[in-house]
């Protein structure tokens, strides 16, 4: 068969290329640009090679923040996923309760991040905050401004309050798609409550759970606004996550090279971990 060789096809993909260039490639390349060069101002740049990357990777500061991120995400997932499933299982399936529950569940998701941060910042204060004051009045020593453990507990409770709804809504969507015949058949087969969950509800929720897990991992790993507003990364560096540290480095200290290198490393870590989770979960899915 005769084929015409020309470059017309490029015109076809050009719009997409332009779009992707402006939305992703060009912003990313400026970061890449900073990460491999050094500058002393005046728009004069010097080639730095991999120096900034090595700097970042050799610093304790990076590894400490990364560890905090991993622990935070692990705790968040360990609480929000099971809690979300439990709440979804107990939500009404029909009747007036459905819209009420759905609205209540959606409320925290509609609040902007920095507002959530401010709410909890005030809520947890020992002097005027309802939570902080009550807990202290009960004789429990609580002060998120001074005690690192308290700061962590506050951030975790805040995140659970803010984001468990997302897991609930996704799981609920999975649950309501199960036809009644499945529950009827399970009754006939004499299945226990646990068996119904294990063999009917969980398999049907698997796909949405995968999405919920990935979304919550990525979001919690990138968390910035709330700790910035509530604790500002403190006390000490105890709640300084990679994102908080990154902003400190780039805007506070104006260390553009290391900050750019850290950005790229940060991005690659999220990409890698998400890919690993996705692969592991979908392969186990295929094996059944």
């Amino acid at each position, binding site marked *: 068969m005769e084929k015409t060789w020309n470059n017309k096809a490029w015109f076809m993909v050009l719009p997409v290329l332009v779009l992707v260039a402006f939305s992703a490639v060009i912003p990313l390349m400026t970061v890449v640009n900073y990460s491999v060069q050094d500058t002393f101002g005046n728009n004069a740049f010097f080639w730095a090679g991999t120096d900034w990357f090595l700097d970042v990777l050799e610093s304790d500061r990076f590894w400490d923040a990364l560890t905090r991120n991993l622990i935070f995400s692990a705790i968040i997932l360990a609480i929000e996923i099971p809690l979300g499933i439990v709440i979804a299982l107990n939500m009404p399936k029909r009747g007036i309760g459905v819209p009420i529950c759905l609205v209540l569940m959606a409320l925290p998701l509609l609040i902007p991040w920095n507002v959530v941060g401010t709410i909890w910042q005030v809520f947890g204060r020992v002097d005027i905050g309802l939570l902080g004051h009550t807990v202290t009045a009960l004789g429990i020593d609580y002060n998120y401004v001074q005690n690192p453990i308290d700061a962590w507990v506050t951030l975790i409770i805040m995140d659970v309050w803010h984001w468990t709804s997302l897991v609930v809504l996704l799981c609920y969507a999975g649950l309501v798609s199960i*036809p009644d*015949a*499945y529950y*009827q*058949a399970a*009754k*006939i*087969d*004499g*299945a*226990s409550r646990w*068996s119904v969950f294990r*063999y*009917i509800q969980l*398999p049907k929720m698997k796909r949405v759970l995968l999405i919920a897990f990935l979304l919550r991992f990525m979001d919690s790993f990138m968390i910035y606004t709330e700790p910035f507003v509530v604790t500002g990364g403190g006390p000490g560096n105890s709640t300084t996550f990679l994102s908080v540290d990154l902003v400190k480095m780039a805007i506070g200290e104006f260390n553009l090279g290391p900050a750019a290198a850290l950005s790229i490393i940060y991005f690659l870590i999220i990409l890698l971990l998400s890919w690993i989770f996705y692969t592991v979960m979908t392969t186990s899915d295929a094996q*059944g």
Partner: protein
Amino acid sequence: MARINLEHIRHAYGAKPKSEEDYALKEVHHEWNDGGAYALLGPSGCGKTTLLNIISGLINPSEGRILFDGTDVTQLTTQQRNIAQVFQFPVIYDTMTVYDNLAFPLRNRHVPEAEVDRRVKEIIEMTGLGGWAKKTARGLTADQKQKISLGRGLVRSDVSAILFDEPLTVIDPEMKWVLRSQIKRLHKQFGFTMVYVTHDQTEALTFADKVVVMYDGQIVQIGTPAELFERPRHTFVGYFIGSPGMNVLPAEIAGNTASIGDQSIALTFQPQIKAGARTELGIRPEFISLGREGMPVSVTKVEDIGRHKIVRARFADRPISIIVDEDGEIPAEPRVTFDPKAINIYADSWRVGGEA
């Protein structure tokens, strides 16, 4: 295995039924024998699935009681009633293997593993799922999945009754015959009480000893296939069973004579009819003979369906169907005679009169 008594059962899906119309299931009061094979036959929406779910305990009836072997089970759960039920669309546990799916109802009841293995292997053999036993149920086709559902219904040997809710809807026609005869064989072998819901008359007539015909929320007739064919109690049974259905013609009844238009037909009995009732004469197409003698008809269409011909004709200005042998001739000036023994008389759609 159990004898099932339905005592004055009624069911409405709405909370407060006001009139008879609100009941999806109108009063049902019957005894079903231990070890019987019953088919619930009727069009969609006639209440047959509702009745089935009341027996299995998935629905609590608004009124009435259910007895198994004389014990009231109305308030008992499905599990306590020890019922097996197969649904219209396949329900499988798709993370389990085919084997585990079939073993599930037994394991939930703590049957010893050796017994589980024996029963499951038997069912696998019966359904022809041998090659799939160790595979997960997820990748199977719809009819294989339905075989698993069916298998789960049949795997327990101690059930009070097995209920089937149009189980063969998604199965290939060829496989339908195989599975139906296997269910039938199991019934003969183990004597389970079986109730089989269907809207397919062939399925009902071949499966059941007794066919329960339902129409508009009530049972209109319970009978053997022969009874349903020869003596339909309600004109609906006449229409619904048989292919084509019974000819039902408006008729004037006077003494033991029925008049349709200007034709008079002598009856072998004298129907007892209340004044003012709407009267009809019913006769199956099989019992009308077409020839040169009798009452005049005009033939409108002849359908040759292989073993015999269906003649569509007009008799006293009413459409009727007549079944004629494959080689039977249709005369130029056709006339018909009705077999007097096969005539049924209906008043307000219900059959009347002595069995003669």
